[in-house]
């Protein structure tokens, strides 16, 4: 069977996997945003206990491998009676992992909003909440887009780790196909190409987002 024939033959299965990969990536990045932003705020504006908890979270997650975290969730939790499906475990693991990294990107962006901007906000009578909501956050989102884009692309590729806990994403599908037809080399070249296409599309979209939100003159 030629390479092209093979590719056409296995594409439906691989695309099924690709859909799971995309789902995992999107859910994880969203979980990551919703945990990451509060954690970043806690690290910048929080009082001592809040700062400590948020910092602890970031250090624990960034200080341990993603694969270890996934194994704890999928293979470890059942021993305390919590059974997660591979997909759910992968979703939670990738989400929490991404949250820690995103928190750091958001923190960096919050801190690079110039102090003068806050002072100006206070000088017209805004309280801290209003200043954060109307001045700091909108500027933070723009500042964070480049580094956040990297995180999204990493996440798309790191979601392949979910293969190790049997989530049916693209790597799992590839492995399954290769174990049946023994065309390992070709199968994973095709898998790699699919990742490449996904990443390219994502980069394009992120470039467009960055341009859309660029502030004229800056």
């Amino acid at each position, binding site marked *: 069977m030629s390479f092209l024939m093979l590719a056409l033959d296995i594409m439906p299965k691989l695309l099924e996997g690709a859909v799971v990969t995309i789902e995992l990536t999107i859910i994880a990045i969203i979980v990551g945003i919703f945990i990451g932003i509060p954690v970043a705020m806690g690290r910048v504006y929080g009082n001592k206990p809040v700062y400590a908890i948020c910092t602890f979270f970031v250090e624990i997650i960034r200080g341990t491998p993603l694969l270890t975290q996934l194994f704890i969730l999928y293979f470890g939790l059942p021993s305390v009676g919590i059974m997660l499906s591979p997909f759910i475990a992968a979703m939670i693991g990738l989400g929490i992992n991404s949250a820690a990294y995103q928190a750091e990107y958001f923190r960096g962006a919050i801190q690079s909003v110039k102090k*003068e*901007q806050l*002072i*100006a*906000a*206070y*000088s*017209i*009578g*805004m*309280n801290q909440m*209003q200043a954060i909501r*109307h*001045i700091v956050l*909108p*500027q933070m989102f*723009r500042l964070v887009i480049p580094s956040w884009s990297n995180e999204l692309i990493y996440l798309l590729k790191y979601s392949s780790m979910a293969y190790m806990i049997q989530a049916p994403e693209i790597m799992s599908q590839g492995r399954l196909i290769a174990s049946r037809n023994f065309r390992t080399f070709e199968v994973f070249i095709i898998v790699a190409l699919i990742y490449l296409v996904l990443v390219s599309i994502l980069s394009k979209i992120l470039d467009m987002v960055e341009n859309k939100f660029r*502030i*004229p*003159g*800056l």
Partner: protein
Amino acid sequence: MPNVILRAENVYKKYGKLEVLKGISFQVNQGETTVIIGPSGTGKSTLLTCINQLTPPDQGHIWLEDTEITHPNSDINMIRSSIGMVFQHFNLFTHLTVLDNVRIGLLVVKKTPMKEATEISMEKLNEVGLGDKINAYPAELSGGQQQRVSIARALAMNPKLILFDEPTSALDPELIGEVLNVMTKLAEIGMTMVVVSHEMGFARAVANDIIFMEKGIIVEEGKPDKMFNESENPRTREFLHKITELYGGKTE
């Protein structure tokens, strides 16, 4: 008796061991312009930020009309919304258009309805001559234009008093005039202003009162004529002589 808008009594401020303000007292009447002059590092800017509590003073009392700003229970956000501030580096919100920069205080702080907030903002922007720039972003404007936007932002809140912290010091020389013209116009229509500035021409022409500060105290205070022509204090004379040589003191 003129209505006293701002009164400061014995204001002290220290940064660590460095005493920046050592007992400042002065007052500003409604519709009058007070210009604070003095060498760099004398505490002039600190004094301004003490007035709106961006830098809370260590000791002393400050009143805005009958409200004590320095009172522990004062509603500081409320008070700040009625004291405008214009900064040396403009501090416009970089992510907002000119119109939104002026309008945001009304919308967020005063909860003014959108239509009314827009009308007020347009009126103020027209007043400073920028009615045609409402959709521009700050980074697309010259320094002089940015500073005029920031004056409009202060005016939109209908303040009882506007503080100017060296409003022209960061501007190219050819842009200073347009900002001073706006400020002169404000003085003419009776806005109460406290201005820290090295613009002696402006001080002479517009100020009702000039305060000369040095090393955290008020050395001398008086009408422009007296300060410029018959100052009693040798330090005032020396400073004014130097600064007039440097910046030019002619009245326009």
